[in-house]
C-alpha cells in the first residue's frame, strides 16, 4: 500500500513539474548603463595683436620714453555659450621709484566698453559663442617726462585679467549680471 502511495506522489510531482514548465522558460538579463551629466565651462582667451597684424610678443618689447606701442587687446569666447566679460587692467613696474600708473597711458574704447565704479571694464553686450569683443584698447603710450635715464632697464607691465559669466539665464545686461567669478 505504501508503494502505491509513493507512486501517487511521484505522479503528482510529475504533473506539477509539467504545469510549471512555462514558468521555468522565463529568461532574465540585466545590464547597466552609465549615464553622464557634465557641467559647462566658459573658456576665454585674451587676444593681443599689433597693428601689423602679428601677435604681440610674449616677452614684451623694448620702449623708449615717448613711444607709442601698438598692442590691440580683445577677448575671444572659446565656448559654445555666449558670455558677458569684464576686464581689469593692472599696470605695474619692477622699479619702486617708477609709477606704472603715471608712465603708461592707455586710451580705452568707450563705445563698446564701460569702466564701472568697481574698477572693471565691462563689455556692453554679450559675446556670442566663438565670437570676439571689439578691442578694449589699441595702443599703450609710454609717457616720456615720467621716466628718467636712471630708470633705463626697468620693466613696465600691463596685465589684462578677464572675468566671464554666462549671459543665458542671466540678466539682460552685464552690469546687472550675477555670478561673476571672484578675483583670486
Amino acid at each position, binding site marked *: 500500500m505504501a508503494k502505491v502511495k509513493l*507512486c501517487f506522489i511521484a505522479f503528482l510531482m510529475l504533473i506539477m513539474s509539467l504545469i510549471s514548465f512555462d514558468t521555468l522558460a522565463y529568461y532574465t538579463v540585466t*545590464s547597466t*548603463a*552609465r549615464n*553622464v*551629466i557634465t*557641467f559647462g565651462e566658459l573658456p576665454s582667451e585674451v587676444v593681443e595683436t599689433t597693428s601689423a597684424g602679428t601677435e604681440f610678443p610674449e616677452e614684451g618689447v623694448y620702449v623708449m620714453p615717448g613711444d607709442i606701442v601698438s598692442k590691440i587687446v580683445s577677448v575671444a569666447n572659446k565656448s559654445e555659450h555666449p558670455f558677458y566679460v569684464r576686464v581689469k587692467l593692472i599696470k605695474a613696474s619692477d622699479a619702486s621709484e617708477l609709477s606704472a600708473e603715471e608712465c603708461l597711458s592707455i586710451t580705452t574704447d568707450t563705445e563698446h566698453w564701460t569702466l564701472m565704479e568697481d574698477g572693471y571694464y565691462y563689455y556692453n553686450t554679450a559675446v556670442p559663442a566663438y565670437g570676439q569683443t571689439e578691442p578694449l584698447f589699441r595702443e599703450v603710450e609710454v609717457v616720456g617726462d615720467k621716466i628718467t635715464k636712471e630708470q633705463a632697464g626697468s620693466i613696465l607691465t600691463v596685465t589684462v585679467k578677464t572675468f566671464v559669466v554666462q549671459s543665458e539665464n542671466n540678466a539682460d545686461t552685464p552690469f546687472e549680471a550675477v*555670478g561673476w567669478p571672484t578675483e583670486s
Partner: protein
Amino acid sequence: MKRTVRFFAFLIAAALLLAGAVPAFAYKGEVVYDGNAKDFVFAPGSEYSPTDLFPDLKDVMPGDSLTQKITVRNTADKGVRVKIYLRSLGAQEGTDDFLSQLSLKVVDSSNKELFDAPADQTDGLTDWVLLGTLESGGETDLTVQLDVPVTIGNEFSGAIGYIDWEFKVEEIPIEEPPTGDITTVWPWIAAGAAVVIIVVLFIVFKRKK
C-alpha cells in the same frame, strides 16, 4: 528656366522649414533589448561612457532646464514578449557632490513619475520598476528632465557626474493561438507515459502481494 528657378526656390524653402522643425542638438537615448544576443544595447554613448543615455545633458549651465528622451525597445524575434525593469544604482562615488546640486525627474510614457529628487539619489528607482511589457518590436518612452539651479557655484565648472541605471529583461514565451491542431504534444506524451508507468507499477506490486 523660370520654372526651374521656382522649383529650386521651393526646395530651399521646404528644406528650411524642415530644418526649423527639428529641434537643434536633440538626441534620443536608446535602450534596445536584442533578443538574438540576449543582451541590452545602449545608445548613443558618449566620450565619457559607451553606455551613456544622456546625450542632451552635456555642458549644462546654471539656470538650464533640459529634457532627455529615452526610448526602450524590444527587438526580440516574434513570439517573445519581454518585461523590462529599471532601477537606479545612484551616483558614482566622487561625483555625488556635483549631482546633488541638480534636480532630476523621470516619467514614463503614461506620465507616471518614477523619480523626482536630487540627481545623486535613487528615490523611486531604488527598487526595480516595471517600465512595460513589450511585444516584439514594441517600445516605450522615458522622459528625463534636468533642472540646474541658477545659484550653482563656479567650483563645479567642468564637473562630471555619473549615474548608473540598471535594466532587467524577462523573456516570456507567447503561447501560440489555437489552430485546431495540437502543436505542443510533448507535455501530453510525458503525462501519458507517466500514467502508463504508474499503472504498470501498480499491477506489478499487486501481483507481488
